[in-house]
């Protein structure tokens, strides 16, 4: 469903010059799988996911989402994805119902189709009680549920979640995590970025540890534990980063 081959993204900054945000990144994610990008802030997770979501173009390399090329077939890629990020906001002056109707319509769904899906999603996410309350009156948890509903209204086969639990309290974060698991059970291909090791351990079928734009190691949690002879993912992460720093020195 997602295939990333030799992805590279270079920015130019007036002060800092050439910045390689993502360098030779390779991974693939299948249907019914959660693929985690684990790394600290500035590791290149968001840039990678923005490229997958067609918001940015790769400098080199090839990215296929649901079989479509992100740079050449951006429109088809957008039909196939649901995108949720900590920084994707909601329209404060609209109700959840109006928000979902709008996103359903701009994603090309028929009116009846939107209403049926919306009812289903509101039922599953337990949103019925606040579906007609303006967004600026909702709690953070309610807003995050709405963001999820917005991302999945057009029933995309691929879901891209960029640090979806950032800034959430423990209870809301758990609710979000449970829904992501539920989407995996529905057979969706999910790519998920986080800088929280326990979250990655619990949720991801495969993990790629990313640092300074490069994937240092990737595999299932068991693969990584066996490879580095460490049970704790955090220890594995620091071991990899230490090796990388020594190599660069």
């Amino acid at each position, binding site marked *: 469903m997602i295939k990333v081959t030799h992805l590279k993204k270079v*920015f130019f900054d007036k002060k800092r010059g050439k910045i390689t945000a993502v360098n030779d990144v390779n991974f693939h994610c299948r249907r019914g799988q959660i693929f985690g990008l684990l790394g600290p802030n500035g590791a290149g997770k968001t840039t990678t996911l*923005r490229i997958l*979501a*067609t*918001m*940015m*173009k790769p400098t080199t390399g090839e990215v296929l989402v649901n079989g479509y090329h992100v740079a050449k077939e951006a*429109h088809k890629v*957008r*039909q196939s*994805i649901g*995108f949720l*990020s900590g*920084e*994707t*906001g*909601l*329209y*404060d*002056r*609209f109700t959840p119902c*109006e928000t979902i109707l*709008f*996103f359903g*319509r*701009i*994603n*090309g769904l028929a009116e009846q189709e939107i209403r049926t899906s919306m009812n289903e999603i509101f039922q599953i996410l337990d949103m019925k009680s606040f579906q007609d309350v303006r967004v600026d009156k909702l709690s953070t948890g309610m807003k995050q549920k709405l963001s999820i509903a*917005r991302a999945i209204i057009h029933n995309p086969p691929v879901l891209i979640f960029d640090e979806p639990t950032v800034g959430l309290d423990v209870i809301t974060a758990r609710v979000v995590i449970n829904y992501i698991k539920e989407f995996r059970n529905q057979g969706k291909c999910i790519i998920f970025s986080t800088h929280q090791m326990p979250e990655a351990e619990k949720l991801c079928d495969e993990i790629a540890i990313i640092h300074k734009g490069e994937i240092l190691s990737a595999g299932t949690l068991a693969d990584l534990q066996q490879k580095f002879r460490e049970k704790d993912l955090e220890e594995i992460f620091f071991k990899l980063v230490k090796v990388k720093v020594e190599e660069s020195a």
Partner: protein
Amino acid sequence: MNWKNVSLVYKKEIQGAIRDRRTLISMIVIPLIFYPLLFLGIGYFTVIGQQSTENLPSQINIIGVENAPQLVEILQKDKNIKIIQSEENPENELLGGKVHLTMHIPEVIETDYLEKDSINPISIIMKYDSTTQRSQLARKRVTALIDYYRQEIIQARLKQIGFDADFLQPFQEQWLDLAPEERKVGSMLGSILPYIIIILIFIGAMHSAVDITAGEKERGTLATLLVSQISRLEIVLGKYFTVMTISAVSMILGLTGLSIAFLTPAYMLGEVSIIRVPFSFSLFFLFLLILAPLVGLASAILILIGIFARNSREASTYVTPIYMIAIFLGMISLSQGIELAKQLFFIPILNNSFVFKELLMGTVNWTHISATLISNISIALLALAAATNMFHRENVLFRS
């Protein structure tokens, strides 16, 4: 391009704007309530202030009453003038407000000129305080009476030497204004109206343009649109038509509010005369023809700035000089007598204000109208193309 998507974005933005208290205040409350109240208030208090001052008498201190008894008599007959005679610190009394005008008559003013050996004009020294309204009013009252007194003396002297009063007036000129009433109103409106229209268009468009571009970037809602199935051009056009609508509505409501303020009889306390605006359907159509591209131009430029800016604050900073330039170009039309060279009709906003002026004066110059349309539409299209291009530029969309 799918117009249904443009319409979806447009409807969403309009709905959001209607629910935004700030947009409603700037679009409806300020023009329809604040403008009339402000101008009515200013007019009311000015008139009340003038009336209350005009009902009060002027205290005139005359030094040398004995030198012009006839003048003093004329002044005394006026019920609005009270004469006092005080030679102690007359200037302090004037500046302290106890006296409103001091008149010093140093020599005898004789009516009978034949009794005099020679005629030398006598200086009557008038002292007043230009910073107080009552002193200014005293000056006005005394000037009128002194003119009358002067005429009396001239006539008496002419009579003495056997001349008729008309001797000094060989002819009287008569000035007749042949300008039709509509043209006079057009000339008056032509100076001020374009300027007001330009300001109202920009004020109306500014807040909404910044809010739905830079504001949306700041709130993180733009990313959700970018990953949806609508194209960048459809997003830009949806937002563009929203700003155009809000700007046009603000302008119409602004003009309505100002009309209420200026045409309400209370403003003139009954002295208002009905202004007959030169109206015809062809003029109305031409006005729309010129107005629509101007609204379009302002909206396109503001959308472009909003998309380029990192956040609302930065956008407001960029918008301010644009607004100042628009005001400057609009202000040029306020000056009477400036004729614009043909090629200057390609300068946006300036061309609008002069074409408006021409139309209100009853002149339809198609060369000027065409130049205005071509210039405004071309710049608006360029700004829109640039705005759409900004939506494809990562360094603009994701800079922080």
